[in-house]
């Protein structure tokens, strides 16, 4: 669920995702090191093969995050809807307002 939330937050925020940022947010949210053995192997393999254009592309996307132009209204509409659904769910479960516990 933490991964889903990190991913969805980024979609709601910008309209698109950037794979690297989603991973970083997930590891941060779960208190895991970014240097996961499989991730290290993946990155090492990429550097060994050195696909220049591909690496530039990934690097570029991590600095200039992809986003949908004119996404502001959609973001506001989605956030409002998510807030309403979450409030209704919490009420149904007798959890009280978010952050109150």
């Amino acid at each position, binding site marked *: *669920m*933490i*991964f*889903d*939330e990190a*991913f*969805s937050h980024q*979609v709601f925020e910008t*309209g*698109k*995702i*950037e*794979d*690297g940022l989603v*991973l970083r947010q*997930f*590891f941060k949210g779960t208190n*895991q090191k970014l240097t*996961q053995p*499989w991730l290290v192997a993946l990155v090492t393999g990429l550097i060994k093969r050195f696909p220049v254009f*591909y690496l530039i*592309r*990934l690097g570029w*996307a991590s600095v200039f995050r*992809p986003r*949908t*132009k*004119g*996404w502001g*209204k*959609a973001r*506001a*509409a*989605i956030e*409002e*809807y*998510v807030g309403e*659904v979450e409030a209704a769910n919490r009420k149904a479960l007798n959890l009280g307002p978010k952050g109150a516990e």
Partner: protein
Amino acid sequence: MTTGENTKHKQVAYYPGCALEGTGHAYNRSTKAIGKELGLDLVELKNWNCCGAMEVKNIDPKIQTYLSARNLSIAEKMGFETVMAPCNGCYHNLKKAEYDLAHDEPSREVNTRLSTKAGHETYEAGKVETIHALDWIKDSIGEEGIAKRVKNSLKGLKVANYYGCMYTRPRHIFPEKDKGPGSESTSKPHFMDDLLAAAGAENVDYPLKTHAAAAHMRCPTAIPLPGWC
């Protein structure tokens, strides 16, 4: 065998999706290169957004429907009746949104609400058809067309074709499949096999061709799953 005489898909709207803009960029480039070589036009959707993938669906499936519907509304606004999504996940989500908007009133209500507040046209089911890259090549070029254009035959190459679950399931969101000869099958898909065979490859029987790769489940566990595609 299809002859590829169908001109309907000679020019289609193109929805690459987030993966093809990032880690799957090679697929994006090769799809465009294939289109150019085969004389098929791909017109990228303007200001497209994420289809919602599996993750947004887990937060709220109606938001995923809206996100995919927004892309379909862009295709409609651009004057297209067909949008091609080469990513299995995006293809699946656009098809699912189409199905939900046609059959589920609450999904329609949320889509209308979000579209109206976001200030764009509300997409209504039935206006735009979503196809996969395999449909695109199969319909517009066909096996005969591929065979004629082969420059470097794949003869001698044995291929186990992997379609994955999102290309085939749930079958109700793919009403055009399982229609008999000429159509794609959800239980034994063959479009990729057909095209590769036309290019000279030898397809081998692969019993896991429609199994799930558990792609989005590998990250939460941070453990690479064996056989991940």
